Structure formats: C-alpha cells, structure tokens
C-alpha cells in the first residue's frame, strides 16, 4: 500500500460535536495503513534509542577506543571514525540530540503556528488580515538562508538551534490551521454554543481546539522531519554545538576528517541513513494522518492529494 493515499471514510461534517480530542481519528488511519505502521515502528526504535541509548554505551561515546577509521569488525560493528571512536556508539548517542532538536523545534513551530492560525481563523477581520499578511511575508522569505544567517549570528548551542528552527517553520502550520479553524467556526454547534452565551475563550478552548488539534498533530509530525533536516544543514556549515553529538555533526565530522580520502564509507553512510529513515518515517506518518483528517484535501471520486503540506492558492481563497 502506498503511503500517500488512504482509504479512510470521510469525516461527517454535520455530526454532533465531540469535546474530547479524537485520538481514534488520529490513530485509526495510521494503524490501517501498512507503510504508515512500518514508519511508526522505525520511529519507535529511534525514540527508544534516544531515551535509553546512553545506557547501552559504556563510557564517553567520543572516547578513542580503536585506530582511526578502522573498518567494521566484530568489536566495532560500524567501524571507527576519524577520532578512533566507535561509530555505533556515536550513532546511538547522536539519536538523542537529533530527535530532541526535531521534536522540540517542531513543538515550538506548532505552538506559534497553531496560535496564529487559530486566532486568525477564529476572529477574522483585521486580526486575520494582519496575521496572515505577516505569515505571507515570512512564507516567501527563503527558510534555509534565514536559518543559516540567524544561526551564524546567535548559534552554537543546541537550545539556540531549537529556537531558531522553531521560529522559522511556523508559517505552513499557521495557514493550514487558519483554513481548518474557519470551517469549524461556521459549523452549527459552534454557532449554537455562541447563541447560548459562550464567550470567545470558551468557544476556542472547548469547541475549536479539540476539532483542529488532530490536524495540528499531523502537521507537527511533518515538521519534525523539516527540523531534523535543518539541523543537519546548520551543523554541516559548522554552526552546531561543538560539544554535542548529533547525526548532523557526524556527517560534518566525516567530511572534515577526510573520510572520503580514507575511503571510510562506514563513517559517512550510517548517520545519513538514520536521518533519512527518521525523515521518511515522519513524512509518511504525517501525510497519512493529514490525508485522513483534512477534508479539504480529499477531492473528487479518487481520494488523492497533493504532496506538500499546504496548497497555497486554494487556502488563500478560503
């Protein structure tokens, strides 16, 4: 089964409101899709490594335990790097920082984007104009050069990198959440709650938020992939935290220590494969959830969708 389409039944737009979060709506399409399930498995393995990995490593992963660029052997399953440290240990240690950056940065983006999107969609009018104009400007300014410039000016610590990535990637989320909030706001039960005298805060928290949160979660999973990717860029350009180990820094070290000239493929391949697997897994999971949740993206009699996170034209008009 392909990861980009799912056969989830359409959400009934007129159904009575559920105040609680629809966890089943998020989980069901993922559980039904074979490749998404596989992706969840991959991600689970890496999360496990990130949490318990340090327990599996004896001592400092950066410690010199063998020769420089020793090929894979029974002692060092993935060989050693340019400093004589075990590649396997480094990879396991790197999982923690890479995933930490991915998850935290995505959470910051989701928080900013979600807030902007919900406020903009719920209140409309001048709030909407101001917020969306700002979002539009930041949507066009290229993300990677901006991240690089900010990192060059402020970077060099893991938390700085997390914040930098987090404050750049909120624009997609804001647009998506705005469209969804606008459609929720118009539904009958929200109107009814308003007629009964519910205030704005109550409407947003009790009625709008539970309806848009699943989509926000799906989008956040996609953002994790972006954030991990961005971290490898920043680190590769020498702007990462020099004291920590991440997959990005392992790729950087392989390049700087001339793994290429030494023909040490084992120092180059594994960190990239790890990044690839996590990015792939997050992309597949996020897309599958979003497909099932976002009715706007389901059109025609063949339920298929565009690949990217948003459809700028259509959502602008909505």
């Amino acid at each position: 089964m392909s990861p980009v389409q799912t056969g989830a039944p359409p959400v009934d737009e007129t159904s009575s409101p559920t105040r609680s979060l629809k966890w089943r709506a998020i989980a069901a399409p993922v559980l039904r899709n074979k490749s998404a399930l596989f992706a969840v498995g991959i991600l689970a393995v890496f999360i496990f490594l990130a949490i318990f990995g340090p327990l599996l490593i004896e001592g400092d992963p950066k410690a010199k335990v063998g020769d420089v660029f020793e090929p894979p052997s029974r002692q060092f399953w993935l060989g050693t790097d340019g400093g004589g440290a075990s590649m396997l240990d480094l990879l396991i240690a790197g999982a923690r920082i890479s995933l930490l950056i991915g998850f935290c940065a995505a959470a910051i983006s989701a928080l900013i984007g979600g807030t902007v999107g919900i406020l903009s969609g719920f209140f409309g009018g001048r709030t909407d104009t101001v917020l969306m104009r700002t979002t539009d400007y930041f949507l066009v300014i290229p993300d990677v050069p901006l991240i690089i410039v900010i990192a060059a000016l402020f970077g060099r610590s893991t938390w700085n990198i997390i914040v930098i990535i987090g404050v750049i990637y909120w624009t997609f989320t804001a647009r998506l959440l705005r469209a969804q909030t606008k459609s929720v706001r118009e539904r009958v039960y929200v109107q009814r709650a308003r007629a009964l005298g519910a205030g704005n805060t109550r409407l947003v928290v009790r009625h709008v938020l539970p309806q848009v949160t699943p989509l926000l979660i799906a989008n956040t999973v996609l953002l994790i992939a972006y954030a991990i990717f961005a971290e490898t860029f920043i680190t590769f350009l020498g702007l990462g935290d020099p004291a920590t180990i991440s997959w990005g820094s392992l790729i950087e070290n392989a390049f700087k220590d001339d793994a290429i000239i030494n023909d040490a493929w084992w120092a180059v391949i594994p960190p990239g494969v790890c990044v690839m697997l996590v990015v792939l897994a997050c992309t597949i999971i996020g897309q599958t959830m979003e497909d099932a949740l976002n009715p706007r993206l389901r059109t025609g009699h063949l339920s298929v969708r565009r690949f990217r996170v948003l459809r700028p034209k259509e959502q602008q008009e909505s």
Partner: protein
Amino acid sequence: MRGADFVVKRVLFALGTVFVAITLNFVLFRAISGDAVSALRCRQCTQEFKEYQRRTLGLDKSKWEQYTIYLRDLAHGNMGRSLRTEEPVTHVLWEPLKTTIPMVALGTLFAIVFGVATGVIAAWRRGTAADKGVLWGGLGFYSMPPQWLGLVIVLFIAGRIGLPTSGVKDPTLGILSDPGFIEVLVDRLEHMILPALTLGLVLFGEYTLIVRSAMLETLGEDYILTSRAKGLKNWSTVWRHGFRNAMLPVITLIALSLGFVIGGAITVEYVFSYPGIGLLVVEAIDQRDYPVLQAAFLLLTFSVILFNLVADLLYFKLDPRVTE
C-alpha cells in the same frame, strides 16, 4: 482589463516582502551581542583595524541613523565592503554568482525534466510496480540531506567514472597551451556535473512526488471522466486534459521550494568546493565577514521573491479562472 489589478497587487506584495527582508537583514545583524566587527576573525584584523571598520560602518551612530544610512546606501546599490579584503561586496558576489547560476540551473532543469516525466508516468500507471518504484524512489531522495548525498556520490561514483570532485576548473589547463573554447567548456561541465547531479537528485525526489499527487488529483476530476466517456484516446486524456491542468499548481509549488534549492546549493557547493555563492556564504560565516553574509542573504532572498512573483504571474496567465 483583466489582470491589471492582480499584477499590481502581486508586485506590491513582492515589494512589501523585499522591504521586510531588507529590514530583517538590518535588525538581525544589529541584534547580536557586541557588534558586527568584534567577532571578525582574520589574521590582519588588529584592534586598530576593527576600530577603523567600526567608524566606516557608522556603528557609533544611533540605530535609527544607522537604519536610514543603510537604506540610502542600499538604494544606491552600495552594500558596503568586505570587512577582510576591503573589496566592495557587489564585486565579491559577482564571480561566485556567475559560477553558481549555471550549476543550479543544470540541477533544477534535470530535476524538473525527470521529476515531471516520472511523476506523470507514476500517476498514469497508478498502483503498478512503476508507480511504487517512483513513489519510494522519490520519498527516498526527498529524505536525503543534500550534503550527505554529495559525499556518497564522491565516495562511490566520482572515482569510478573519473569526474573531478572539487573546484570549478582544472588548474593545469591553460598553463602549457592556450586551450580552445570547446576544451574550456568541457572542463567547466565536468566540474559542474556532480554538484548539479546531487542537487538535481534531491530536488527530483520532491518534484516527482508533487507532480504525481497533482496529476492523480487531476485525473480524478469529472472532466477526465467525461473525456474518457467521449472516447478520447488514453494518451490524449492524460496529456491534453490531465497534464496541462496538473502543471498549474506545480508551478507554484516549485517556486515555493526555491528556498530549499538554495539551502541545498549552499551545502552541496561546500562538499564539492565549488566556488559559488554557497561557498562564499560558508567562508563568510567562518570568518564572520558580516557585510558579505548580509549581501548574500539579500541576494538569495530577492531571487526567491522574484521567482515567486514570476510563478504567480505565470499561474495567472495560464489559468483564466484566477480572478483575484
């Protein structure tokens, strides 16, 4: 007249974005602790040199004064001088720009041609082995960090087919004899091909997925069903009714992905020591040569804004339904 309104609106928006970028560029580089000069790293950068730079940059004036001076200079095309070499930044950018453009163009062209071709085929033959191959291949390339793919290509491919892996030209060329035009061209292409291929493959992954989804969506429209029912040939349905409509959103999405193209180009140039804008940015970061970094950031941002504007106008021209 249809469109005058739209064009004016989009151009104004682009100008607004340019202004935001310019201001952001000013604010970011003034918000750092210390100032632009104190972090400068080079051999000849003594304390006196830094003091002198501070005065020439006007860093002793008030922020507002600095901002107006910055805007005025920019309006005159004056982006300052490199802190290290004293050369005007516009000169510093010129040579690398000429080196980068052909490489990025080659890579993007490769990605568009192959991405569109495979994406259309995958959507047309939906669910077959070909479709699955394209889908997983696309997802695979899409998930690879470009700098890593570059290293892998150098490691496994470059040596075997004997292509150079660094620089933009053979240093020995032209020492003993005067090389002909063809010789120089071949040499440049040989140096360009691997970075372009790396960038192209990563983009190919993204484009093929975009095209496939757009195409699938279009093929699900009612007018496709109608054209099938009319008895049009399969090829004609896919090409004339499906492809042409599916390409509309693809134009916008490709323009939006340009920020990513540039990011990829920077790291790829670094891997291949290809002396373009990307390598210049890396060097400027390394030496904290902020005027060069600022100018490069503006250049990259302006080009993305311009391409987005062009994509918007193109979309408008091609799709009569857009009335906004």
